[in-house]
């Protein structure tokens, strides 16, 4: 049986993990390779690396990082941030990433999704969407959530799927950081509208939130950062809780 995936997300700046982490006994807690290995040991099912300061100057640093991570990591990993072209995606994938994630660049030029899936296959292409609930409508935001777009979450997600997205990573901006639970209504709506897997992000605070997500929303995976980094939830404990509630996971 295909299991539900738990995916920690590491924000990267200048080749280092930012948004501090709380792993004790690690000599270099900011080293993405050390953290990646630690998460793999904890039986994370995948990892996502997000370059939050993706500029031309930083790309070489990112490619180096991807190479170092690929050398050490024996679980799949996704890299996002600043991927605007097939050429950049190719660099990242050649360095050893399994998938690439695109967000604003794909919204600005949807054709990018088509180009990437034609070249690498849709299983390689994750389309990340940030959306915020405003007056009962989930509105797509780009540029790290700063710019509101005149488009609804479900409409853009469906368009991305048609263009060749292999997965949709939806971050609920309202829920992000609140630790009040996932955006269940939006996730259920997405799940009904889409055929591709959905990765839910934003709002995770307790194990029960993950139980609720997998029981009631149709999401295939959950992505979180701080609850894992700060050890509010340990992945092995979380997975045991999920298994207890009859949710299939990799223990």
């Amino acid at each position, binding site marked *: *049986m295909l299991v539900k995936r738990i995916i920690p997300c590491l924000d990267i700046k200048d080749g280092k993990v930012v948004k501090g982490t709380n792993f004790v006994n690690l000599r270099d807690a900011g080293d993405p390779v050390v953290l990646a290995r630690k998460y793999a040991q904890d*039986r994370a099912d995948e990892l996502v690396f997000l370059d939050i300061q993706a500029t031309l100057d930083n790309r070489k640093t990112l490619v180096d990082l991807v190479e170092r991570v690929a*050398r*050490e990591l*024996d679980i799949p990993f996704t890299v996002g941030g600043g991927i605007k072209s097939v050429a950049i995606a190719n660099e990242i994938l050649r360095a050893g990433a*399994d998938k690439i994630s695109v967000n604003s660049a794909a919204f600005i030029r949807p054709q990018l999704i088509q180009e990437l899936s034609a070249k690498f296959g849709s299983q390689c292409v994750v389309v990340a969407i940030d959306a915020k609930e405003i007056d009962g409508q989930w509105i797509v935001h780009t540029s790290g959530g700063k710019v509101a777009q005149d488009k609804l979450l479900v409409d853009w997600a469906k368009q991305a799927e048609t263009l060749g997205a*292999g997965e949709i990573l939806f971050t609920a901006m309202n829920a992000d950081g609140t630790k009040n639970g996932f955006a269940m209504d939006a996730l259920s709506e997405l799940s009904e509208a889409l*055929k591709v897997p959905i990765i839910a992000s934003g709002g995770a605070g307790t194990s029960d939130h993950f139980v609720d997500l997998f029981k009631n929303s149709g999401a295939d995976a959950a992505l979180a950062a701080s609850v894992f980094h700060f050890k509010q939830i340990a992945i092995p404990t979380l997975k045991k809780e999920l298994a207890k509630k009859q949710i299939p996971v990799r223990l």
Partner: protein
Amino acid sequence: MQSKNKIVVIDYGMGNLRSVKNRFKHMDVDATISSDLSEIAKADKLILPGVGHFEAGMKQLKDRGLLELLEEKVIQGNTPILGICLGMQLFTNFSEEGNVEGLGWIDAQTKKFDASIIQSLHKVPHMGWNSINVTNETVLTENLDTNDLFYFVHSYHVVCETDQNVLTKTTYGYEFVSAIFKDNIYGVQFHPEKSHDIGKQMIGNFVKAA
């Protein structure tokens, strides 16, 4: 052990092979990635990985002069070979992906997931961690348990003519063949190089294979 265990990962232009090599490197096993025919000819064991289109894969093998060499090494020379994902599918007689003939080493066909059977609950590609059910005992599946989880990414799967060649099965909407074998030939649909400790176990088993 190393001297008699020269492993070559065959580079035929289908996808990134580095992750396979990285895993061997981690296990202190000497493996090289090569497209060089003389290098491949000297191998004690072969790995045929690959991600991508079946027809393109066959064309690459042909254009690079690998068809004859592989036939000689694997069929006449009994060199152990492990096919991963597309690599495994290429061992079959025929694929619906491009409607072309494969290597024909295993009496099987490669077919697309039947969307009418797997229904809307199951998405194609089949992507993520899924369990295997070991149906035949071989060195490759030593110390593996049914329900061990491996990482899968694929839209096509193998259908064997006979159960004798079926090594493991996996359920995704319906039960399909997730690993095959025949004499010195092994093929897995999943990615042991991406399947954490259990994948490492399986790669170690292949290294031990006679």
